[in-house]
């Protein structure tokens, strides 16, 4: 029923020809009223009759084996039902798009904080009490818990283009800089949660997950059952940012417990559980080398890094991703080392790669501009390559130069002046900027659209993690079928529906948006048939179909339901053209001379990211990313104990996500119109991650401009800012 469309060539811009006029508009989210009134049902809200409560028990050693548990120590606690260990339990969440079971460690312990058992009780209080009291016996092994301390590391062959060594030798002006970034946490406000219930050999799991199509396979594989026996529900997800890409230990534990006890079981991770065992963003150590001619043409680019992960995890933070396509050079070289450590495993967190890699790259660009005596905006404008520097692909569209110019103009960049010169009392004021870039993708995705009269339903297992999927799929369908968006109902987050890309890597709107567009397009053709005209002659608008002298209300024309399903996947255009969102971030900060405190006073980001499907939700995504940039630049730092690797900053009082007071009211976003014909049939690029990519660097560069001194170890905490000022004076 669902034939697959492959993106082999640019497609006509149908969404610019349809007449409903809702695409791109700042429409309010259809799910908004439920969210603001507390009626949106998130995982932990979906409690059913007779539910039992589970709390995960964490390991308190960094490596070894569980040799026993004193069940008697907790079974006597009133309300405790069971302490469950099971060979099917998983060590940590699946990596994004794994589609298979993560490591199932049995009684082995691989890191401090690993879930090793589930306590189930009649009440949450009893389960929590028992989980804390449970006495566990271990056999411990030695383990390295820091990248510096481990001897187990793997270094890849360098990825290169041209001859970096020769270009570096010959460069007239050079910067060779080292940066570090700490581990970071996604810290979505909704803790990871699951409610599982078995019926007739099948399990239904409500869980807060981003990629249902993959999660269903992951759970089936983990439990050793057929995917047809698994249903996953996630109609509302309280934020993900990568941390809910893969099936988590709470869902597996809930499913196993529910099967064993024959009743529904809810497992909600405590905030501490979330920090302990949900995939973190790796810490990085980066070395950036940039070489240029006297007049500011970059000739050599190298960005080497060391990241970490636990044994058996295939993911490594792609730190130099943007450095490989943003600027051109005669020679480029990128080498990554992955240190294997016994600590909470690493995985995708919003914009893996760009989020931290661009802090290093764009700070180095700033320092190069300083060395050259060039304006940082000019340096960037001068070094935009014609083609992807590593593989020679064409850029699909790239309005980076426009973003840089418009940004400089709108921000008042011309008033910037020399570093360390502007003061207001104890505060030093500075401006900084950075490029934004985040590559964009199309991932296989399916949707179904049904139309009866002038009411349409969109069905896909796609998720809305705050991104605005409910809004944009309604808008796409409404635009294609000539309906008011209120007449389109969007059903998401149910694995019984057609399998979408899921939310991740900024590809959700591209992919699920395109499959929905294609399904709606099929319906258009069927309407044209009903009306007796060619598709090209059909106009759908305001609930009416017009074509070849006929004009009918859809309510009269479509009396029997029309149903169409469509699937899209990437094709030849992805081989010939490189698609990426681009932009420019500008920030103004005030730095306190005595305390080193940094206040962001205003930010502006100008972005071109293909067709904007909803101006309002797109802006929210962009702003969210920019504020994550503020967090990365100033406050966010996950700390691990140097002896056993346990997460020290395991709650929201110790891991500092930005709060209201850290974010100025003056946060501006400008979108530059763009259509990416090579990306997908709706001409979009990803949005969710471009905002963060480079944003923190603009803040860090502003600090360097305010004080005349640069911090190289991020975040720029007050003590580091003061140290930077003191060392160099």
């Amino acid at each position, binding site marked *: 029923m669902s034939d697959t469309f492959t993106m082999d060539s640019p497609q006509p811009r149908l969404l610019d020809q349809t007449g409903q006029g809702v695409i791109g508009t700042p429409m309010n989210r259809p799910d908004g009223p439920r969210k603001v*009134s507390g009626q949106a049902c*998130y995982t932990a809200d979906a409690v059913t009759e007779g539910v039992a409560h589970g709390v995960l028990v964490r390991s308190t050693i960094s490596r070894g084996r569980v040799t026993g548990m004193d069940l008697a120590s907790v079974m006597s606690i009133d309300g405790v039902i069971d302490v469950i260990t099971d060979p099917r339990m998983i060590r940590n969440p699946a990596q994004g798009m794994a589609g298979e079971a993560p490591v199932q460690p049995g009684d082995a312990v691989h890191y401090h904080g690993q879930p090793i058992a589930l306590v189930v009780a009649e009440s949450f209080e009893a389960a929590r009490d028992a989980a804390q009291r449970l006495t566990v016996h271990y056999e411990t092994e030695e383990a390295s818990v820091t990248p510096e301390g481990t001897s187990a590391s793997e270094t890849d062959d360098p990825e290169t283009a041209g001859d970096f060594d020769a270009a570096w030798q010959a460069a007239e002006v050079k910067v060779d800089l080292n940066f570090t970034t700490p581990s970071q946490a996604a810290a979505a406000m909704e803790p990871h949660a699951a409610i599982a219930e078995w019926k007739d050999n099948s399990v239904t799991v409500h869980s807060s997950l981003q990629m249902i199509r993959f999660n269903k396979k992951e759970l089936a594989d983990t439990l050793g059952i057929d995917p047809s026996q698994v249903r996953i529900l996630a109609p509302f997800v309280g934020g993900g940012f990568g941390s809910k890409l893969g099936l988590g230990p709470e869902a597996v534990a809930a499913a196993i417990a529910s099967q064993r006890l024959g009743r529904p079981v809810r497992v909600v991770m405590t905030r501490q559980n979330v920090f302990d065992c949900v995939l973190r963003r790796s810490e990085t150590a980066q070395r950036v080398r940039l070489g240029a001619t006297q007049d500011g043409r970059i000739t050599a680019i190298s960005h080497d890094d060391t990241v970490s992960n636990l044994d058996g995890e295939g993911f490594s933070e792609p730190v130099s991703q943007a450095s490989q396509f943003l600027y051109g050079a005669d020679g480029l070289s990128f080498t990554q080392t992955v240190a294997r450590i016994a600590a909470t495993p690493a995985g995708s967190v919003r914009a893996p790669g760009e989020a931290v890699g661009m802090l290093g790259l764009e700070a180095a660009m700033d320092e190069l501009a300083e060395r050259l005596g060039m304006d940082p905006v000019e340096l960037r404008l001068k070094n935009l390559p014609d083609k992807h520097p590593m593989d020679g692909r064409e850029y699909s569209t790239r309005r980076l130069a426009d973003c840089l110019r418009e940004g400089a103009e709108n921000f008042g960049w011309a008033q910037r002046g020399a570093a360390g010169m502007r003061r207001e009392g104890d505060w030093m004021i500075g401006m900084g900027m950075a490029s934004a870039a985040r590559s964009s993708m199309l991932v296989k995705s399916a949707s179904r659209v049904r139309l009866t009269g002038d009411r349409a339903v969109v069905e896909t297992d796609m998720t809305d993690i705050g991104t605005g999927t409910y809004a944009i799929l309604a808008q796409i369908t409404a635009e294609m079928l000539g309906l008011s968006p209120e007449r389109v109902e969007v059903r998401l987050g149910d694995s019984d529906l057609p399998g979408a890309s899921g939310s991740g890597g900024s590809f959700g709107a591209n992919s699920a948006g395109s499959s929905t567009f294609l399904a709606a397009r099929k319906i258009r053709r069927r309407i044209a048939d009903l009306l007796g005209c060619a598709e090209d002659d059909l106009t759908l608008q305001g609930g009416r179909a017009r074509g070849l002298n006929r004009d009918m209300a859809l309510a009269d024309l479509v009396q029997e339901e029309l149903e169409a399903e469509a699937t899209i996947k990437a094709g030849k255009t992805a081989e010939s053209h490189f698609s990426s969102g681009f932009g420019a971030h500008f920030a103004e900060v005030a730095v306190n001379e005595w305390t080193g405190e940094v206040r962001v006073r205003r930010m502006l980001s100008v972005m071109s990211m293909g067709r904007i499907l909803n101006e309002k939700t797109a802006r929210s995504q962009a702003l*969210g990313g920019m504020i994550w940039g503020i967090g990365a630049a100033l406050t966010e730092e996950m700390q691990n104990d140097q002896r056993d690797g346990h997460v020290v900053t395991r709650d929201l009082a110790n891991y500092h996500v930005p709060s209201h007071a850290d974010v100025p009211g003056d946060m501006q976003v400008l979108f530059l119109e763009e259509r990416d014909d090579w990306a997908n049939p709706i001409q979009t690029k990803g949005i969710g991650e471009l905002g963060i990519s480079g944003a923190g660097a603009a803040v860090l560069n502003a600090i360097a401009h305010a004080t005349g001194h640069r911090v190289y170890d991020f975040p720029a905490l007050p003590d580091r800012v003061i140290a930077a000022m003191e060392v160099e004076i």
Partner: protein
Amino acid sequence: MKTTLTVNGTQHEVGHDPRRTLLDTLRDDLGLTGTKKGCDHGQCGACTVLLNGERVNSCLCLTAMHDGDEITTIEGIGAPERLSALQRAFVERDGFQCGYCTPGQIMSATAMLKEIAEGSPSYVSDDLDAPKLSDGEMAERMSGNLCRCSAYPLIREAIAMAAEVKE
């Protein structure tokens, strides 16, 4: 043990574990799941409700301590078909993304506007006797409500918009 609470105008007698928090009572015993748990430790504000008219983190309140108290939750502020001015402004300004922190933000903002109207100053007030609603005041006073989606500027726009409608 048993505690009597008036929630959104309705009196309930709840039997509960002595360790039960007001948050879990609201969510799991009374089925008022609009109030969210983000940390259970008073660090995020997702669980904000009004307790006798004042905003509190309900995860830090033991149910047993609140016999006879009046509680207002997000469900008592407005349902989808009859939203309060603040709720409408949140929708209009997109003062949320995932929506998980949103009930807490709205409860907190509801009380915050009242605090300013009553003249209670904050750390950033220029005039300690008559603080005015400004972006800086809101940023300071709303800082107990984290939003990882980082809708902060839009949340404050929404609050300002609703405050204007009311005036």
